[in-house]
Every structure is written in C-alpha cells, then in structure tokens.
C-alpha cells in the first residue's frame, strides 16, 4: 500500500516536473512581463520576479498604435466569429438534416477547404483585395478570415448537430414548425454551449492571425495586435519588458477562452480524426 502510494507520488512529481520544464518558456514570459527591465536583462534566470512592476504593461498600453490595434483586433475577431458561426450553423444544418444530390460534394469541399493553408491563398487574395481597394481595411481582412474559419466551424457544428436526435425536429415539424423554426428554436438552443465554443474558436483564429494581417494591414491605425507587438520592437531599440507584456496581453484572451471551452473544442477538433 505504501509502496503504491509512493509510486503514485513519484509519478505525480515526475509529471509535474516534466510539464514545468515543457512550459518553461511560457512561465518565463509571464514572469518577465512583471519584472523591471533591468532585471529582465540583468537577471534572466529568475523564474519568479524579484520585484513586481506593472510598468511594462502601462508602457505597452500607452505605446503608439496599441489601443488602435486592440480595438481592431476585437472588431475583426468578434465580427469574424459572429459571421462565421452564423453561416456555419446554416451550412451544418443543411449537411446534417437534409438529403440532396450535391451534399457529398459539399461535405468533401468543406473537408478539403479545412486543409487549405493561408500561404497558398495569399497571392491571389491579396491581388484581388488590392484591386477592390480593400487592403489596409478591416473588411478586407475579415474576408480572408471567413475562408480560414468557416470550414472548421461547419465541421465542428455538424458533428454536434449530428448528435441531436432527428426525432426531435421531426416531432416539431409534425406540429407545424418550419425548417427555420426547427433550427432556431430546437437545435440551436440544444447546442448553445457548443455554438458559443465554436464562435470562441473562430475568435481565437482571427485574434492571433499573422500572415494576412501582415500582408494587408499597413498603416499604424489599422494594424491588429500581432502587428502592433512587432511594431513595439521599436524603430531603434527593443524594449523587452514591453514586448513580454504585449505577449502576455495577446495570449490571455485565447488562453481563457480555450480553457473555458476546452471540453467542446477538443471533442470537436479531433472529431474528424479520432471519432472517425
């Protein structure tokens, strides 16, 4: 018995140790963001700050373009989340509840689009958006995020919708409900948490996206957070303290969202592969 308890303890200790080593860069980032700049450069090994300061955060907050960038990121990510989730709900409903000739083609398209990486689309999308005068424009950026976010959202929502017994909506239809009412009154309320989770996931995608933001958003006022962080490198020097504070500020929203919605997202994300 004691032997087993010891074994459990040893395993726990080893697991904690390895996870800490693995997470070292993250812990170090969070810790550095609270250190005064002199300690960041002078005592880089201290995992815990010797003295805690919020000055890095205030400098980042007041840096040129940071507040604009925060607003831009929020607008783009929220708008993308809402639009993508709405379109994806309709598409998932279509794939989950109807039978028609091109359904297989559509489903395959979504699966294929899900694998479409941004880098192979960047040339034509940028050229087209330049022609439409949508560069350096939040709408233009959002259009590219639709492409990145929609396929995954449809696929995850379809997975959750498939789990709701069709008998429920058939019963409602017998009572005279229309397709639209079945979707909005029965299905969406039943999968509300999953829907919010998918919206959160889309939000995260848009929030941290770098390639299209870098290619499209050029002026200081229209940059999103990842670009503002890069700009914070400064024209002439690197303010490490400010940079770590910015890194922490950008990481917090996706981290909280993900931890909160973990249960739904992990199931949904791996459903294509794990559930089969």
């Amino acid at each position, binding site marked *: 018995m004691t032997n087993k308890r010891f074994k*459990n303890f040893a*395993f726990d200790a080893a*697991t904690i140790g*390895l*996870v800490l080593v*693995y*997470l070292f*860069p*993250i812990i*170090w*980032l969070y810790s550095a963001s609270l250190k005064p700049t002199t300690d960041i*450069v002078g005592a*880089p*090994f201290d995992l815990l700050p010797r003295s805690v300061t919020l000055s890095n955060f205030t400098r980042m907050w007041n840096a040129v373009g940071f507040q604009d960038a925060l607003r831009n990121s929020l607008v783009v990510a929220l708008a993308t989340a809402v639009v993508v989730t709405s*379109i994806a709900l*309709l*598409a998932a*409903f*279509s794939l989950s*509840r*109807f039978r028609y000739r091109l*359904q297989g083609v*559509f489903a*395959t398209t*979504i*699966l294929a689009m899900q*694998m479409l*990486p*941004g*880098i*192979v*689309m*960047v*040339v*034509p*999308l940028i*050229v087209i958006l330049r022609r439409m005068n949508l560069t350096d424009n939040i709408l233009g950026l959002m259009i590219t995020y*639709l*492409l990145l976010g*929609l396929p995954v959202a449809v696929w995850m929502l379809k997975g959750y919708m498939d789990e709701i017994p069709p008998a429920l909506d058939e019963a409602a239809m017998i009572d005279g409900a229309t*397709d639209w009412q079945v979707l909005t009154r029965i299905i969406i309320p039943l999968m509300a948490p999953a829907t919010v989770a998918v919206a959160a996931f889309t939000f995260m995608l848009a*929030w*941290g996206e*770098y390639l299209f933001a870098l*290619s499209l958003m050029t002026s200081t006022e229209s940059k999103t957070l*990842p670009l503002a*962080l890069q700009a914070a490198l400064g024209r002439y020097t690197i303010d*490490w303290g400010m*940079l770590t504070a910015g*890194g922490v500020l950008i*990481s917090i929203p*996706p*981290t909280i969202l*993900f931890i909160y919605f*973990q249960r739904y997202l*992990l199931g949904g994300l*791996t459903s294509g*592969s*794990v559930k*089969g």
Partner: protein
Amino acid sequence: MGSRRSAAGYLFFAPALIVFLLVGLYPILYQIYLSFTDWYLLRSLTPVWYGLDGYKRLLADTVLWESFLRTIIWTVGTVALEFVIGLLFALLLNRRSRINAILSGLILLPWVAPSIVVAYTWRWLLDGQYGALHQVLYQFGLVGERSLLVDPSLALLAVTAVSAWKGAPFMTIALLATLKSIPEELYEAAAVDGANLWNQFRFITFPLLIPVSVVMSLILGVLAFYSFDLVWIMTKGGPTDATLLLGVYLFRQFFERNELSYAATIGVAMLLLLLAFSSVYLGLLRKRQTA
C-alpha cells in the same frame, strides 16, 4: 432519418457556398491564371501572358528545390518530435490522478498562444546576448558564443524544435483521448497473463494508437509543411537561407521581389502537393469510417 425537400438543403448551404466560391475557388482559379503570366511589378503593372515559362523557371530554380527539401526535413522533424513529446505526455497524463486533470489543461498553453508570442519568446530565449536558454546551453558547452539562430547548420534544428514545441499539445490531446477509450479490462487480462508494463504498452497500447497517430501526423504534417509565421518571425528564412521554407520563399517573391506571377506559380505547385496530401487524408478517413 426522413429526407426533406432538397431545395431547402441547398438554400441553407448557399451562404457557405458563396463564401467558398468567392473567397476559395475564385482566388484559386485566379492564381492558376496568374501562374501562366509574367507579372513583375518593376516591369509592368498588369500580368502579361507567359504560357508555361513560369513553370520552367520553377523547375530550374535551385533555391526553390533546396527550400522544398528543407521543408520536407522541417515537416518530418516537426511531426516526429511532436509525436515523441505527445506520446510521453499522453502516457503520463493518462494515469488516474488528481493533478492530471489540471495538467492536461495547462499543457495546451503553447498550442493556444499566438505564433507571434511564441516566436518572439523563443527568439529572445535563444539570443546570444540576452537569452536565458542560450546561456544555459552555453554553460553546458552545447553552443558557442553566438546564438543557435545565427548558426546556419543549427538554425533549422532550432526552429523545428520550437515548431514541435508549439504543436505537440494537439498530438498529446488526441493520443490521450484514445488512451482513455482503451478498456481497462484489456490491461487487466494482460496482467493476469503475466505481461509486464512494457509488453502491455507494446502489444495493447501502441497498436491501438497507430490509427490516430497516422491521421494526426498527417494533419500536423500539412500544418507544418505550409507554415510561415513562426519561421518568418524568428529568422525570416535566414541566416543565409538556412531556414528558408517554401512558404517563406513564396512570401519573399511576392512582397520583397515584386514577382507576383512567380509567387503564384509557387502557390499553384504547393496547392498541387496539398491535393495529394488531402486525398491521402480523405482516403484514410473513409477507410476508418467504413472499418
């Protein structure tokens, strides 16, 4: 499940279809068109028909072929490391213990962090002047005075490791989910038959993990093959092209050299490769669904 009017089915799919046609298919076709043109912004402001010459240039471009090879090494390295880290953590976290619930959440942090944050954090950790990790490696004599990221023979290894570090949690979670679905009785029966821990792993756990590992490796492999952010922010493809991946090369042609059509040609070539990847992926999925 009763079938409903198909018109409604099309209608509900229509918004998504419009997005795919306008933002997906149309740009792809436009890119194919561009790949047959010559469009060098320093010479002309509109594309000029060029036929297959862009592809000839692509075949003769040694820098591109070197990047292709490098991208394969990077992809295989990333996925292999992700698998090793993922398997280690999945096995550790699968034990029933109070702390493991918390740790399985925490371990996702690198995966959730935006790539700009990951790239800068590591760039700094490895900096020859200020980097904490660099100084540790230096103390152990594993690196010289200059950073890993300055050494052309080690920079690719360094960025590959960072990429695996970021992607490993995804692999961990998928493997963990599969481990949790293996019925306890299998191990109990094996234990009764006298199998030790290693044999239990070898004959029960590992074979059951193979299918999910293959599919996850493919997904993570595609992600790695087409990645751009991490390497661009950490090294911009340098030093001296040591970390020049296909995606970085494409971006450079487009934004730094103003070779719009050549970038499109590379894009089309990368799309064709993707077609091969995804048919393997879809084939595997179908096989699993019918199995």
